């Protein structure tokens, strides 16, 4: 479903991408970002204390522009491996999936250098797996605030790096003294990747 939505938005922007002179307030935009994620999970919660994070992957597509504001959607995936079986269960890994919408603001520093702070909100799903077998999942929402720094290498191609703070709330039913350990995650993401625009 997530991929279908992104694919639809991608086709939508392609159909309008030929229109170079658009004087409307709302313009279709076509920024596609693909990046690697270096996550740093912290706090007194399940992912920080009972798991180790690994290199993740993310993608983002900005499809509308109003002045310098851009509206987009994205998807992040971060794998984790279990380090504390007593708190996680005898389950080898967790997969953190996040699908979100975001608003960013483009700040042009030089002809080739842009800053792009953004704010996003969306859904989160934490899947538990061991040897390809599912051990259930947790769902919830996530909120993110971050900044990307783009450096243009060609007319339609940039590289970028950025970071964001990401907070997720997850649904959980357990003994009251452990609810706060399982109902949230907090992490810093360091992203680096390419942007096609």
């Amino acid at each position, binding site marked *: 479903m997530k991929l279908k939505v992104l694919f639809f938005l991608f086709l939508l922007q392609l159909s309008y991408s030929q229109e170079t002179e658009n004087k409307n307030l709302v313009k279709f935009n076509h920024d596609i970002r693909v990046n690697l994620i270096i996550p740093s999970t912290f706090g007194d919660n399940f992912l920080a204390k009972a798991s180790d994070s690994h290199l993740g992957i993310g993608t983002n597509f900005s499809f509308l522009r109003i002045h310098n504001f851009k509206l987009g959607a994205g998807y992040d995936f971060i794998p984790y491996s279990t380090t504390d*079986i*007593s*708190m*996680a*269960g*005898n*389950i080898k890994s967790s997969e953190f999936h996040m699908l979100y919408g975001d608003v960013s603001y483009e700040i042009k520093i030089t002809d080739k250098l842009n800053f792009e702070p953004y704010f996003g909100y969306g859904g989160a799903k*934490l*899947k*538990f797996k061991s040897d390809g*077998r*599912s*051990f*259930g*999942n*947790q*769902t919830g929402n996530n909120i993110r605030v971050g900044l990307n720094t783009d450096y243009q290498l060609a007319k339609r191609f940039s590289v970028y790096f950025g970071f964001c703070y990401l907070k997720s709330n*997850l*649904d*959980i*039913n*357990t*003994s*009251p003294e*452990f609810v706060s350990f*399982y109902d949230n995650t907090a992490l810093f993401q360091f992203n680096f990747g390419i942007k096609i625009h």
Partner: protein
Amino acid sequence: MRKILFLFFILFTCYSCEIQYDGETRLVVQGQLVDRNSNPIPNKRVEINNFSDGTYTPSDLISYTKTDSEGKFLMIFPTPKGEDIEIITTLNGYNFDDDYATLNYATGFQNKSITALKKNFKNYKLDLNQVTLYKNDEITQLQIQLNKTSTNKTVTALDVQGILSKDFTDLNYKNENHYLETNFNVVKNQNVRLSYTIADYSDPTKVVTTNHETIIPINSEKVIHLLTY
């Protein structure tokens, strides 16, 4: 085509045999291991296995840990779906890290298993509190031999009170078949109290039941007690 259908059938059958889990609900099992003098027993393996009551009885080792320096243990794990899944906590189970050569079963602590269902968890937690483990060389057997001398009499209840070292505890055990347990693991060097009830059917119109008690001394050897009625 038949082979493909058969393959799908096998895959579906295997999938449906697996225990399913709810990742948004987590159960907690906690407790403390102590010896007969209430001293904590550290560094002992405690594990939880889930068993379904399906035809092929699939099971999952869903969690394991070791007791800390105070003998305490805590495990939190996803909840199996289904009310009939048996959640078995094994105390002082086999530790894969242990070296066989260093194990001494004669002087080691007993193993103990506690079987629970989800309904035994209060607010998602099963607190086993203090569980006493006895060393194997502290335990002996008591066997009650029933010696029936009258066809009109039968033993309807039998209980042993004292320091027992049960290897298995089922929190939902119901003796619906009125099975008389006659073999007990008991701690050495104590006196245990044997309570039993005898029903007399000599008068078909009126069943007479009488309660009895007797003290059985337990020393270091296995005890066979003859119960004549």
